[in-house]
């Protein structure tokens, strides 16, 4: 397993740091001199999961590459809130071109670095689920099949949030967005549509594919570190709850990511060359209702007449994930 095994130092290694852990075993985020690749003053909403996920991921990549990272960024929340002209929150070389071409831009940077012989500098591409699963998918698939030396990180918040919460192909079934309103017999996003990009990435047989959430920092850092050890196309898909689009309290961002993982809604795993190598098992199993109920985008399931059928359908999806990826809780945690 790639993630840090749980070591018991009062809390185990679930917390960000731990005064009792030897410094070399502490997380990147616990370091008082961490890179803060995306700095304070950005205009993300209160409790933004994407701002947090981006710092977790890029700081870990910076640590793994000795601070030599160039990032290409798709259009989306992350780009908008971090770089209102002429300000930038990024403390790394960072480029934004278009919504759909991020993977191609990153490929170009990697090719240029190769020509210049600067192979010590690594390339990261990043975008939201809209820029990745919808608009940028063609370029991304090309980057995968050519096995270009780029780590592509997708921050999945399940929709186009900064433009007013429109549906993307990563929006979960039954969720209300401004383009999938909670009306009619089948309210919210329809079942049977959308795609799970990590599985598509795996189908390209690229060297490394992983999923993570902002609720498991150690796991996320270990996956980025592992990805940076590999040359070629790599893909990490990070679930980043969105208080605005999901209709959750700003303080519940990490809790929502944890619930997504613990209910089986979002499987957390890593794969090499198309084969699953490890999964993050469920620690405290919970019904999907516990994940759905705090989110206003599912409020229509819990009205005067609860949509038990829809909740059951979502539960079946979670159960399928648990079965398919082997997420069952194990004795003694991980």
């Amino acid at each position, binding site marked *: 397993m790639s993630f840090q095994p749980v070591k*018991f130092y*009062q*809390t185990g290694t679930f917390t960000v740091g731990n005064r009792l852990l030897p410094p070399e075993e502490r997380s990147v985020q616990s370091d008082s001199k961490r890179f803060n690749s995306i700095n*304070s*003053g950005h*205009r993300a909403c*209160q409790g933004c999961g994407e701002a*947090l996920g981006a710092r977790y991921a890029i700081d870990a990549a910076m640590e793994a590459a000795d601070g030599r990272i160039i990032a290409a960024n798709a259009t989306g929340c992350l780009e908008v809130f971090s770089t209102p002209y002429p300000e930038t929150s990024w403390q790394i070389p960072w480029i934004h071109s278009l919504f759909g071409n991020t993977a191609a831009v990153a490929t170009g940077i990697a090719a240029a670095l190769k020509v210049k012989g600067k192979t010590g500098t690594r390339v990261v591409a990043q975008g939201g689920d809209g820029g990745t699963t919808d608009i940028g998918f063609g370029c991304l698939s090309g980057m995968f099949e050519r096995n270009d030396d780029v780590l592509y990180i997708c921050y999945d918040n399940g929709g186009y949030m900064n433009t007013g919460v429109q549906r993307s192909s990563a929006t979960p079934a039954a969720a209300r967005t401004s383009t999938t309103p909670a009306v009619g017999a089948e309210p919210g996003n329809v079942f049977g549509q959308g795609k799970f990009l990590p599985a598509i990435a795996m189908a390209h047989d690229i060297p490394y594919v992983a999923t993570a959430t902002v609720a498991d920092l150690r796991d996320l850092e270990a996956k980025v570190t592992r990805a940076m050890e590999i040359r070629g196309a790599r893909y990490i898909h990070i679930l980043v709850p969105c208080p605005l689009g999901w209709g959750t309290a700003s303080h519940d961002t990490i809790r929502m990511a944890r619930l997504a993982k613990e209910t089986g809604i979002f499987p957390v795993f890593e794969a090499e060359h198309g084969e699953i190598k490890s999964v993050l098992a469920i620690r405290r199993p919970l019904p999907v209702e516990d994940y759905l109920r705090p989110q206003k985008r599912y409020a229509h399931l819990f009205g005067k007449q609860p949509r038990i059928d829809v909740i059951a359908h979502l539960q079946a999806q979670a159960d399928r994930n648990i079965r398919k990826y082997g997420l069952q809780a194990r004795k003694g945690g991980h």
Partner: protein
Amino acid sequence: MDKPFAITLDPGSSLANHTGSWRTFRPEYLDRLPPCNATCPAGENIQGWLFHAESGDYEAAWRSLTENNPLPAIMGRVCYHPCEGACNRQHVDSSVGINSIERFLGDEAIKRNWQFMKPATQSGKKVLVVGAGPSGLAAAYHLARLGHAVEIQEAGPYAGGMMRFGIPKYRLPREVIEAEVQRIVNLGVTLKLDAKVSSIEESMQAGKFDAAFLAVGAHIGKRAYIPAGTAAKMVDAISVLRSMEGEDKPMLGRRVVVYGGGNTAIDVARTVKRMGAEPIIVYRRTRDKAPAHDFEIEEALQEGVMVKWLSTIKQAEEGEITIEKMALDDKGFPQPTGEFETLAADSVVLALGQDVDLGLLEGVPGLEVKNGTVQVGPNMMTGHPGIFAGGDMVPSERTVTVAVGHGKKAARHIDAWLKGTTYAPPPKHELAGIEKLNTWYYSEAPHVVRPMLDILRRQSSFDEVVQGLDESNALFEARRCLSCGNCFECDNCYGVCPDNAVIKLGPGKRFKFNFDYCKGCGVCVAECPCGAIKMVAEEN
């Protein structure tokens, strides 16, 4: 300056954008009172000393512990640890074994001969402590550390009081008492044994004492009227336990009936069992109504002590007693049923509680005695100025830990009284209940169970029943502490802030918020494992 095409502004950092202005609520660090500390009768800062033990600094842990309680090796054996009953970890898996870690620290201190720091200056005041039980020893210790000259006058031949004459060896080995008492003597406390105070006023005048603390305990066994033949052998429990300390062991015969359901009844029965006799406890109510702690009843039953629940003794004759069956009424009180039974009994030991010998207080003006106990104010002072009292002789729960707590409390008030001031305890923090914690971050860690002596040796010897932890498992157990309500520097707030608005100040210095950028989302509060941050509304 020449700029590229279409560029009119220099690049700037988002640090210019003070997002703190968005905030309507702000996070604040705070300290809450952990439930263990809140319930400790001796007022120990349990979480505080566990903090040191977690990093393996046992001496610092012991020094922190003994700030409040000078008897950790004794506590680690005889305290009924209400702290563990309150511990929030029971809602995660099981309570932290605080008592077993305390014992480990106490034993470690004895093994390594750690001594107390002497006070820097002397006050020149003299305080008489009457009685060398837990309360007297604790008061003497705290008074000595505050710089007062302390003399303990003890009526008995050994120090320890009820810890020595009421608690059997298999629960508290005598060398443990000796070691912890000696350490208090080494601090400069004068201990006079076989020195019974018959009049407190005379003793104070004779020794020119400025104040006195009375802690004579409750040593007189209560009697109950039981019709008895002239040849029936009846003794009280405390004198049985006391005689175990001398050369002449009590002669009780083979079949020994112990009358009562408290901890003393259990102690006598288990003592008698170890002497080779067959004890039978007779108690008028049921097991769940018995005042003895259930684990002690369980240990006694394991060792082969017989119990007749719902029974009273009607008649005692030579060689046998008559007991009457009882039944609990609607209110839970035992009522006679008229059903009788005879039991072979060579002797009857009455374990019906103890009274205080108040002889030394005769003629002291202002003193109030009610229900056989001395009345004291909130500052532990009796109605007579300068005479304070604590332990079993004042109205309270009668345990070693409560007594130690009385000693500490009285010492603080005596110190203030001697200086002509009053002692006001600092205000308590709000309680850190389980609802304040985010237990996700605590990994599963099962409680370390203390090993027990094997049953044959428990039935036949006075060897200590409950064994101690060793270094490795004491460390593990200490690290099970959740640090409820007080920051233990896990870096969670620092890590989870989406706005880098938490500043890490370095080891031991905790964190602070950068309110220029904190948007007030509250993620740090939600993800703080121990509940050491709260949200408060911003003014205007």
